[in-house]
């Protein structure tokens, strides 16, 4: 293929599983994008998707896939924008099949949809496999394994793009790799051009959380005001041949792109800034330059890179039962005292009367909750909420917790109200490493 030297425009249309859709449609229509990336997997999302697939073999992909594809396919076809996404989660094939059905319904002919597989490494790992970043082995976990997926890099995506895919759907595609792959292809970067790969990885890292670089997860009234967050725009990266890029957003959208928003995202979920590991490269962000380049335009450059890691990271998901949470509120004078009395009653009932075995945690929201372990207490609040939680493999224990908190309405302190209780599935994940030679990414093309 010909190597292009023109600026490559790549945008984000989702930065996590439940991200907004309407600004993605706006970006698809007006962004003149070469590629739109929909990044929809967290560390634990694939494990939840495996559970969905075990319950129904036609499921196991992003629950918003239908709505996203229905809203974006026509606009991306009209603008010649390629979509790259990991919405396939635990079942890329079903996600591709569903996307093909939607494209047909929309009357989009000759759409090439690539399905990337090979990230599911279930059966390839031994039970004595040690964890990557903590003591212990897979065998030491008593919960049932629901799935294990290796993080695939740009080399898993490029062949599908070479084959002319309009849509690329995979499972555990590493977040920055979905950005790096089309950049490598467009600019002709080789897979040992470590500095270029690091530059492309920096672009991916900055873009992968969507609005976290355009003003989302940033506002703090009075010191960090952000305009019109209700209509925040998704980010666009205008990438040059050398891998430097301008991060920006559509005119007329809310949010802001400033040196400060870019800095916060630069080290988001990064440990050593000089050693950010992906399947593609060991990237060094410690000398990155960040400079204003006009209104809502920030230029980033000067990432360095070294050889990619020898192993791939694998996320192993375990079925950890359920999380049970229930609460009751107290307001007015003595609210904190009544809330604390309620906490004592519930603890006594659950632990002593019923002999509940699982750990429980009791917070008094408004007085002490998120920062309880950090030692922060606001003792005089007149509007507090008791919150009781446990993780348990036993449905019976979970239901008992909800029952005892609800019982406070008649049996607890004066003036309690607003009971809610909810039981949700719980997943546990661990990370292990796998030899690259054991992982075989592959793609298959489907057409409408």
């Amino acid at each position, binding site marked *: 293929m010909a190597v292009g030297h023109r600026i490559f425009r790549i945008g984000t249309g989702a930065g996590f599983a439940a991200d907004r859709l309407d600004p993605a449609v706006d970006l698809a229509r007006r962004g003149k994008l070469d590629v739109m990336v929909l990044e929809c997997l967290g*560390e*634990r999302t694939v494990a939840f998707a495996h559970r969905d697939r075990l319950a129904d073999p036609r499921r196991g992909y992003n629950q918003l896939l239908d709505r996203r594809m229905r809203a974006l396919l026509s606009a991306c076809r009209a603008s010649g924008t390629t979509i790259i996404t990991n919405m396939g989660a635990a079942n890329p094939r079903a996600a591709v099949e569903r996307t093909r059905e939607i494209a047909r319904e929309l009357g989009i002919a000759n759409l090439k949809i690539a399905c990337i597989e090979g990230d599911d490494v279930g059966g390839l790992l031994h039970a004595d496999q040690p964890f990557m*970043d*903590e003591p212990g082995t897979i065998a030491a976990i008593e919960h049932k394994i629901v799935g294990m997926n290796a993080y695939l890099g740009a080399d898993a995506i490029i062949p599908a793009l070479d084959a002319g895919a309009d849509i690329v759907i995979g499972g555990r595609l590493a977040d920055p790799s979905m950005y790096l792959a089309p950049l490598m292809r467009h600019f002709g970067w080789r897979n040992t051009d470590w500095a270029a790969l690091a530059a492309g990885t920096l672009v991916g890292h900055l873009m992968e959380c969507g609005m976290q670089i355009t003003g989302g*997860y*940033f506002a*703090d009234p*009075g*010191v*960090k*005001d952000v305009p019109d967050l209700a209509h925040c725009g998704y980010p666009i990266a205008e990438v040059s041949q050398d891998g430097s890029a301008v991060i920006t957003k559509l005119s007329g959208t809310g949010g802001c792109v400033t040196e*400060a928003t870019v*800095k*916060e*995202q*630069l*080290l*988001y*979920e*990064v*440990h*050593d*800034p000089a050693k950010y590991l992906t399947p593609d490269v060991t990237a060094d962000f*410690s*000398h*990155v*330059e*960040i400079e204003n380049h006009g209104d809502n335009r920030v230029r980033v450059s000067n990432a360095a890179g070294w050889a990619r890691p020898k192993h791939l990271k694998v996320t192993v998901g375990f079925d*950890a039962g359920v999380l049970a949470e229930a609460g009751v509120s107290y307001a007015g004078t003595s609210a904190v005292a009544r809330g604390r009395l309620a906490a004592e009653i519930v603890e006594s009932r659950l632990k002593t009367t019923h002999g509940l075995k699982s*750990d*429980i*945690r009791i*917070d008094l*929201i408004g007085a002490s*909750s*998120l*920062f*309880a*372990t*950090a*030692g922060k207490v606001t003792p005089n609040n007149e509007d507090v909420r008791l*919150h009781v*939680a*446990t*993780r348990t493999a036993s449905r019976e224990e979970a239901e008992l917790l909800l029952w005892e908190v609800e019982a406070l309405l008649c049996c607890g302190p004066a003036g309690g109200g607003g009971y809610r209780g909810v039981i949700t599935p719980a*997943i*546990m*994940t661990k*990370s292990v490493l796998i030899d690259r030679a054991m992982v075989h990414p592959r793609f298959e093309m489907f057409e409408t």
Partner: protein
Amino acid sequence: MTRIRQNERNLVRDIAHARAGDKGNTSNVNVWVYDPADFALLKRNLTVERIKREFPQLMRGRVTRYEVAHLHGLNFVMHDALEGGVNASLNLDSHGKSWSYLILSLKLES
């Protein structure tokens, strides 16, 4: 961005902004001064020892401070600082997303 006047600066939040992220049971919080002139003040106030001293129950593991001097920022990596993290914590905020404000709420001491 609104600048806090010199005589009204009491908290880290008055001179810096921050973002928290998580990987397993490890939290990282990056902190950036608004004004490069305040970087030395930030470094004096936010030491590894101070972070461990302020939150002894929470900071159960190793704390490392990385410096990105040319951008006037610090990155704190706090191992075993998420009460088990998103897999195990019963904290409503099991990701520790709010840990950025634990640090921003600290008083400027020196």
